[in-house]
């Protein structure tokens, strides 16, 4: 791949034509053997250069045409017999190399995902420890501040300062509560549940709190979608994503759609999944931020509005349930989060598997 030139096909075709000529013209078994080894190397090279399998026969065809032009005197019967071997050799080498490449890539993807999981787990453990210590410290700060309010005249500036100390301490407490929630990646007692009622209920709850210019809809009329989870986990996932979506919409006329689909298989997973989607027509997420969006403490909200823990909490919840979370976003058009959770056998909606529409 590194030495890839502007015309890799030209080079490969030229080499292959050369070796095909050798095979066609030579009666020496050693020369033929050498040419076959080269044919195999070319097949492998084509995989390295990401060329599709069909190109192998195209290269062969081009070489045959060149051979026929250069040596019209060669008897067809002999040539046809001799030139099949290099083609077969190139095909086999291509298939083998291709399979190895797929295995290596799958392994790389799995390793990357596992690394991310380990990193989040390590951060979770750290976060729990820090939050615990922090709460002890805040306990002293809040307690002594409250005691001090007894000592200071209520209408003094000192009392006002104390009020601010207490306010800030309680804000810090909310932050540590978020940290502890993030650290709690293990689901407690997931049980078989139909996500549809949980999602409907969450949508009803959210409608009451969202500003009037934002519409929130459930897409279509989904049938039962069974997964292993806790009711409040599903609620937390949908609620967090919808609140983020509402924040992304800001002043414009907004629409948030929540979808529930049964997928027979996804590129990441061959088993049936239930896909929850939250799609908004908000401002979108710039591509340079998309990779960092699940990191703890990452937030685009102004100070005091968000702790930056929401999405990492969701990431933890979804991973804990054996699912994946996906993100598609186009700045200026909107964002869609998709949560895939393993479907419970036989209980999903039949025949509704479909590729998600944008």
């Amino acid at each position, binding site marked *: 791949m590194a030495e890839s030139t502007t015309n890799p096909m030209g080079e490969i075709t030229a080499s292959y034509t050369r070796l095909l000529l050798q095979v066609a013209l030579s009666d020496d078994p050693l020369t033929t053997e050498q040419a076959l080894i080269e044919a195999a190397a070319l097949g492998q090279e084509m995989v390295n250069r990401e060329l599709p399998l069909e190109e192998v026969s195209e290269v062969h065809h081009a070489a045959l045409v060149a051979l026929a032009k250069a040596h019209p005197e060669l008897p067809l019967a002999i040539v046809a017999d001799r030139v099949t071997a290099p083609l077969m050799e190139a095909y086999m080498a291509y298939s083998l190399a291709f399979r190895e490449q797929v295995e290596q890539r799958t392994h790389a993807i799995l390793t990357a995902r596992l690394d991310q999981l380990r990193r989040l787990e390590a951060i*979770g*453990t750290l976060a*729990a420890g820090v*939050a*615990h*210590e*922090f*709460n*002890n410290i*805040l*306990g*002293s*700060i*809040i*307690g*002594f501040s*409250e*005691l001090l309010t*007894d000592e200071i005249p209520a209408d003094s500036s000192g009392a006002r300062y104390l009020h601010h100390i207490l306010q800030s*301490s309680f804000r810090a*407490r909310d932050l*540590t*509560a978020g940290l*502890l929630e993030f*650290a*709690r*990646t*293990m689901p407690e007692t997931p049980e078989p549940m139909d996500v549809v009622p949980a999602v409907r209920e969450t949508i009803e709850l959210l409608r009451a709190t969202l500003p009037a210019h934002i519409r929130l809809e459930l897409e279509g009329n989904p049938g039962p979608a069974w997964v292993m989870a806790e009711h409040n986990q599903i609620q937390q996932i949908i609620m967090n994503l919808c609140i983020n979506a509402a924040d992304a919409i800001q002043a414009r006329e907004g629409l948030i759609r929540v979808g529930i689909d049964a997928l027979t298989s996804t590129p990441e997973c061959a088993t049936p999944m239930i896909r929850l989607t939250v799609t908004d027509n908000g401002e979108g997420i710039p591509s340079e931020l998309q990779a960092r969006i699940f990191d703890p403490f990452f937030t685009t909200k102004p100070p005091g509005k968000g702790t930056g823990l929401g999405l990492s909490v969701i990431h933890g919840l979804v991973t804990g349930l054996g699912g994946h979370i996906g993100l598609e976003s186009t700045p200026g058009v909107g964002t869609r989060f998709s949560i895939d959770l393993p479907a419970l056998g036989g209980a999903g909606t039949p025949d509704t598997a479909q590729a998600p529409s944008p």
Partner: protein
Amino acid sequence: MTTILIVDDDDTFRTMLQEMLSREGFHILTAGSGGQALKLLNTQTPDLIITDILMPDGDGIELITTLKQKNSPIPIIAMSGGRRSISLEFNLESAELMGVKATLAKPFSRETLRRVIEDALR
């Protein structure tokens, strides 16, 4: 006079709680570990125990377990800075399962403390 035993390894927090509850008119005993608390309970009988549950030297869960095994009638309030933590053994929920009267998630306000103590002593 109502006597409360405060058990916490954090000196500052223990001092704060002692000060706060003295002002509320309680008589206060203090211990810096579960072991100290058990020793103290050999000679004293408070009306209420407020204990942290995650302490390095003889933790609060052990204190609660020992008292429950002895069928101690003294009501217990368990406190912790971690409402739920990864290590399931050391959290307020496990204390609840062990039959403490109430739990307090640190940090808490004086109002909350008053209310929880009032309930526990009822």
